[in-house]
């Protein structure tokens, strides 16, 4: 028997060997095992399907929105933006407050833009409530959010430092996870 060499045959042999080699290379590249405690932590973060971000004019809430978006990006979480109108006790809760509502819409606009840039589903709500913290908690419960991401203090140049009452109450009373972002003064000063 004399060998019959054909370029197409050689090419097919090369394709055959290459495809088999690639197949085995892929098969053996198994990702490393994840310890139970690590898996539990990773999954609890990945389980955040709905994240609430309270928006305020007094703090740099946009940063909290950006953080929430990054937190929810992998699992395409829904970002719920909330602007709470604090209604004084002298007024009824259903009193129309067009000026405040318009301010709320304006404050929500850049936040919504950030979420849209990330391609995540977004909903924005303006809620009248006696206190911002109780409004946030009520909304968190109604919307069944998995986490609240909020910015506190020192967000805008010239604002006071420290956790405000809103953050303290939300941290104390929330049934879901709460992530509080406090940016250092030098950073917020630059963004201002």
């Amino acid at each position: 028997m004399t060998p019959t060499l054909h370029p197409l045959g050689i090419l097919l042999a090369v394709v055959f060997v290459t495809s088999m080699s690639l197949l085995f290379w892929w098969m053996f590249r198994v990702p490393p095992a994840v310890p139970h405690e690590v898996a539990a932590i990773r999954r609890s973060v990945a389980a955040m399907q709905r994240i609430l971000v309270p928006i305020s004019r007094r703090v740099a809430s946009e940063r909290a929105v950006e953080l929430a978006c990054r937190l929810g990006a992998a699992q395409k979480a829904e970002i719920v933006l909330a602007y709470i109108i604090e209604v004084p006790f002298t007024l009824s809760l259903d009193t129309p407050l067009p000026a405040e509502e318009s301010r709320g819409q304006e404050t929500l606009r850049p936040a919504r833009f950030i979420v849209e840039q990330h391609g995540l589903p977004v909903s924005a709500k303006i809620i009248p409530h006696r206190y911002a913290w109780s409004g946030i908690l009520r909304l968190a419960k109604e919307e069944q959010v998995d986490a609240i991401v909020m910015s506190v203090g020192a967000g805008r140049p010239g604002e006071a430092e420290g956790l405000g009452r809103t953050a303290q109450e939300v941290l104390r009373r929330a049934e879901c996870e709460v992530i509080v972002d406090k940016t250092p003064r030098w950073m917020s000063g630059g963004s201002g």
Partner: protein
Amino acid sequence: MSDNHNPAAAERVELRRDVTIWGSYTWGYADVGADIYVALGLVIGAAQGGAPLAFALAGLVYIMIGLAFTELASSYPVAGGGQYYSLRGLGDFAGFVAGVALLLDYTIDIALFATASTGYFNFFLPYFGIRLQDFAVSFGPIQNFNLLWVSETVIMIVFLLWLNVRGIRESSLVNEIIGLVDLILEMSVVVFGFILAWKPELLVQQWRQEFPTLSQFMYGFSLSIISFVGLESISQAAQETRRPATVIPRTSVALIFTVFILAVGFSTVGLGILPWQEFRAHESDPIAYLASHIPYLGVLAGPFAAFLGATILFISANTGIMGDSRLIFSMSHFRLVSPWFHHVHSRYHTPSNAIIGFGWVGIALTIIAFLTPRVLDTLANLYAFGATFGYILVFTSLIRLRFSDPYTPRPYKVPLNIKWRRKDGSTVEIPVLGFLGLLGVGSIFATVVITHEIGRIAGPAWVLLCVIYYVIFRRRNGLPVLGSVPRDWEQEQMDVLTSAEEFELLEQYKQALIRRDRQRGIASRWSEGG
């Protein structure tokens, strides 16, 4: 969970997880790899110049079957395979029927492949001055009952039974080593065939001038599915595979494409070297005949083919024993058959009763095969019947489980899905390929029933016989016959994922259940400590 509620949860974890990545791959390859060795000549003989197309088309159906098994085996990494998926998806009765269909296949695997393997070993007997024909005896209607051959086969099966009782690591190691050698040998036939002897003009000429009629092609197509049966063995070893949910999708997909590439490669290289008529004339040893026409390799063709055939069929028989035992072990666990089969060997951590119990059935079948020459045909017929019937139930289960259990994480998902959001807020992904696969397997099953005379009678007869046993067993034990025993599947799934150390999936599953319960407005039992 009390033992009463989930009787074998404790025993379930006792099976040792000793199957590695290569081990998982070779459990499947051992079963499928032998098939092409048998099917090549038959398919080329039937589909003639259109054989590569027949292999490719059957391969497409097989890919769908393989992907369905990949999804199910990685989502439910327990022993039982198709039987377990049918039980989860369709209930106890369907689980039993799927189980006995696949049980039929694995038992045939033992008998058929052990007999064929020793047949190839006998090639070497003349080198030791032994003539096989000298051991043939005839009595009454029994002609040419070969005492030596039957003894060799029974000894081989007994050895395999011992090996399997001894441990999954030991039996897996045999597959791993022999599987590697055989894979290299099979690949070398294709590679050297393409480089040294392949003539594309011969392939084209046969394709153009020797293309079969539609009925011939359909027959060849129905035969070519034989070359792909066996992938499910990977799922049978799932409960003993390390990190099964991660490993099985990789080994299954790699195996699917290995076998597909080999089947199409062999038929393409074969028809580019020899006319199809020559394959028909050498149906029993197509690869040896092909190898004998490849320069340099041809000199070694005889012993080479005998060695390859003997070893690959040997590990196929080994896979048959493993598959049979895990299947009956799982059926026993779910109280579909006697609890006797659920015993785990205290020292070796293997399902010893299940191995020995059905191993003897394999031996009995082997002896019957030697008594009647036609029985080998019967076995091959039954093989096709059992496999396609079992696959139909597996596809149905795949579809059903997407609806009934959307919460179990699926590390691998059959591609092409349509998302459907249900009223309760959950999202179901409807598997388009699942429906296409069901259609494909259904049509092959219909072809088997129409064209295989023995299979269409003996196959249903086997199932019916087993159903009679099932009715008696369930009634005697006060269990529903057509209904299902209530089971805590969620806890079962948690136990399985914990024992498999698939913690990422375990947490994913837990979160999905918590979310579901929250949507339903009920307190979740999984939220504690979660």
